[in-house]
């Protein structure tokens, strides 16, 4: 790890002021960087991939709103463990709580924050190994194309083929989430526009925040009939192979409307509008119709050499997320 200094920001204003050089600075100069839980950032610093000269610690910020869970909104510093355990959230938007309930490990969830989870960097093993000078680090090759790509994208890849690692982001997509911002010109940004694919913006980054912007809160629309399913190779201390988030509007047992977003399959959270379309009008009791609609999730996939199995897993994840959303036990679970 390199030498760096730490600013213990006591308020969001202080953090924003400390971050201000980032607004003027040229992108290439190493700029101060925000640290929330530090679960991702410190790892990257240890590996020599992130080298901020200054860390601005958000955990010392005193504003209570950053740590509160209100109806329809929670603060940027709320931990994943707190989201997972919040009874009101489990009632109003279970998909959000469920998406992070088994992510990572209990230790990580106790420290990792909501904003940090959205802005964590990709897990691509070439990116995470300092010796690979890949596109995302300013090099000229994507090593995954001809290399080891079993965990890479099956949708929207190219020129970089990462999958977006956040469990929380697709959950917020199906709840029409947005982030509250300070420190820049904007005060809000829909979650769907927080991320960009490698072909749409700089391949060096994954999000669309301007330098100097800080996430202070996260908003969502209630989605009481929503669910989550992650398919994991290993159940402890591992990322999902694929996962799906679903929010349903039901009329009786018929799906009147659905929001479906997949994770770990593309460089951004990956909405599945064709599946949403196919689900409309399907009766939950009609297993065959449900399976047909979920199978649409695989359409248009462009798997790489080693990850075709993910194409097969995705419809299963969607179907199980729907089952999760309508699970009868849901109501009891919400009461702690």
């Amino acid at each position, binding site marked *: 790890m390199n030498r760096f200094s730490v600013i213990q920001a006591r308020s969001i204003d202080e953090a924003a002021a400390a971050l201000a050089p980032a607004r003027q600075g040229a992108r290439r100069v190493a700029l101060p960087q925000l640290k929330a839980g530090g679960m991702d950032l410190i790892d990257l610093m240890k590996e020599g991939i992130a080298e901020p000269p200054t860390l601005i610690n958000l955990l010392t910020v005193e504003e209570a709103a950053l740590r509160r869970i209100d109806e329809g909104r929670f603060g940027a510093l709320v931990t994943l463990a707190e989201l997972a355990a919040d009874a009101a959230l489990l009632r109003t938007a279970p998909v959000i709580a469920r998406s992070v309930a088994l992510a990572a490990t209990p230790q990580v969830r106790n420290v990792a924050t909501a904003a940090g989870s959205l802005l964590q960097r990709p897990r691509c*093993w070439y990116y*995470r*190994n300092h010796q690979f000078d890949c596109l995302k680090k300013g090099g000229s090759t994507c*090593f995954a194309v001809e*290399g*080891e790509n079993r965990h890479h994208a099956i949708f929207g890849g190219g020129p970089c083929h990462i999958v977006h690692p956040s469990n929380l982001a697709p959950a917020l997509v199906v709840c029409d989430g947005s982030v509250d911002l300070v420190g820049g010109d904007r005060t809000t940004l829909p979650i769907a526009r927080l991320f960009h694919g490698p072909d749409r913006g700089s391949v060096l980054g994954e999000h669309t925040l301007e330098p100097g912007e800080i996430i202070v809160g996260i908003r969502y629309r209630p989605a009481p009939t929503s669910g989550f399913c992650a398919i994991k*190779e*290993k159940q*402890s201390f591992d990322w999902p192979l694929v996962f799906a988030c679903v929010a349903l509007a039901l009329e009786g047992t018929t799906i009147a409307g659905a929001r479906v977003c997949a994770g770990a399959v593309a460089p951004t959270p990956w909405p599945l509008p064709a599946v949403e379309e196919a689900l409309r009008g399907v009766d939950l009791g009609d297993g065959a119709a449900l399976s047909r609609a979920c199978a649409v999730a695989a359409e248009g996939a462009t798997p790489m050499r080693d990850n075709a*199995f993910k194409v097969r897993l995705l419809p299963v994840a969607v179907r199980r997320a729907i089952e999760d959303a309508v699970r009868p036990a849901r109501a009891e679970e919400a009461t702690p």
Partner: protein
Amino acid sequence: MADADQINQPTANRSFNDAMVVDANASRLDGVAKVTGRARYARDVTVPGMLYVQGIRSPWGVGKLAAIDVPAAKAIPGVVDVVVERDTGEYDGDWIGHVVAESRLALRRAMRALAPRWERGEPKVGIDPGQVVLDAPDEGASAAYRRAAHIFEAEYSTPVQTHSALETHGLVVEHRGESAIVHASTQGTFAVAEEIARFIGLPRSRYEVRCEYVGGGFGAKFQIGREGSTAATVAAATKRSVHSFCTRREEHLDTGNRPSSHIKVKLGVARDGAILGGQIAVFGGTGVARGGGGASIPSRRYALGEVSAKTTNVRFNAGAPRAMRAPGHPQGAFAEELMLDEVAALAGVDPLELRLRLDTDESGARRAMYRAGAEMIGWSRRHANGAVPEEGGPIRTGLGVGSTSWGALRGPAQAEIVVHRDGAVELRSGAQDIGTGFRTVIGIAAADALGVPLESIDVRIGRSTLPEGPASGGSVTTPSVTPAVIAAAQDAKRQLLEVAAQRLGVAAARLTIVGGNLRDGERVALAWADLCRLLPTESVVGSGRFDGRGGTLFGEGHSHGVQFAEVEVDIETGVIGVRRVIAFQACGRILCRKTAESQVIGGVIQGLSYALFENRLLDRKTGAMVNPNLEAYKILGSVDMPVIEPILWSDATQTGARGLGEPPVIPTAGAVACAVLNAVGAPVRHLPMTPDKVLAAVDAAAAQPAGQPADGRPRREGGAA
């Protein structure tokens, strides 16, 4: 099925061995120190003013160093030396030089300042499946094929598993000018003392190797490696203390591994499932080493008829293997057990029945374990391979079984017991506790033989200045040192009793020591403190030695074992959940029940991790390992843990302590693979059994012609064959 809470307690199965146990309840003497962080491992040792060493390593499978800025690195404050020995690398992690610095920070800055520019060559990253072919059959194999009702052919493969010990490789040389203490994380205190002599610049009488605790070794910590020899060389040159430990990345790359294998099998099978013979060709990866590859198949645990076996070492651009917990055996057992289940299916025989027929253990111990285990796991519930449960759903269950054995190996050892006049008792053995519980085990042996409580013994181990003991490999430590300890205790006791007899004026033969008291017949004659006070000298020293002879690789008195596994497979996702493993293991006389059970549990865990997750993955284009950490290199975690029931088998043929460290890791992956075959109806022949491979097996099972499943029996739930 038994109540989960109850079977979670290893003690539930203790009725199997109650009569054989020396200490049924002792806990690890250093357990509290370890879990509270008080135990100081070699890596934790810091000495004021010490230097740090780190290797400069090739990042690619084939690398040529085009440029490196040594002056820039040397210019960094705190950098003491930079040495570049070579400008080519043969594998990711290949040591080509090193940096010496006053602090870790200076070391890291120097490594960066070097800014090496490497040109990449074309690496070979593994065994080419195209080369995995059988030779023309010899006489015996040809005859077996001619007589056979079925010809069975299959190919299996196993990945590279790294040792992944929590404490990485390395040592600290604490230099004191004219003498030194070497704090080593090692499996061989005396091996380090011997090897380091060439580098440390001191006579053997001027340095001591200490190995108080070891954070895991699993076979990779016998040699000091470049990290150790360089540290010693630097210490000798500078007369300063040196700290040198591998990073996690280096640990994966260059401190050994369980090598990969491809195993091709062709067998002639009789109508009733008897194996008439055939061919087994093993292609064993060796990385850049010239040898050390292979898989122990056939294991000799099963009668396989006239089998000709051949091993071919395959070199490629990767770090070399080292011994790893039962070297060669888990690889071979995976292929052999799964092969047996496939043969059983081909012949329509129950796989347990087939094993009972083929088992070569003449003592009958393994057959008894098979029967007891079948009862416990409910083998009668085992359905035909790939049977679909009536209630439907994506979960399929399966049962599997595998076996193990380990020779009664041992080596020469010495020990001393010192009884002081103030009543203190010291047990001295230079051998090391690599986490097995050895410290506690020899304490128990000494307490038992001397007649005092375990708590009253101060066990001193892991020093090259104490009586010599073996390196911990081949599961020899306990069987070798324990006899020496018992002899030492008897010697000390004899001396104590002689003194007491003289002072009390009674015949020594009437005296004994029980529970720390001197007894004259049934009567307590003296309490321990009073007895020791009688000593004419400050202490008495009891000495014991064991010549190490009488070991056997095969045959009588070895450590048999059998493991049963129960799995659930989700056929929509390919995810395997191992639910239960019952592990029978003989280990001779059980000195310390808890640590012995812990060895069995640990072996099963390592075997499960091998079965499901572990895989050193090299990038096919560059030869660099893509997962040199403990996140992308996956190891079994708490949520994936099944209920594991260790059963220490008491076996009348075994009278002394036998090896236990290695045998329990051997059969697990094979037993799980058999259970997966049973669950989905087609085999997963390549480890690790990841969801993609399981899904392929599910497809293969579905593609079998209707009414003609792999095992030739109708696919439906219920009933054993």
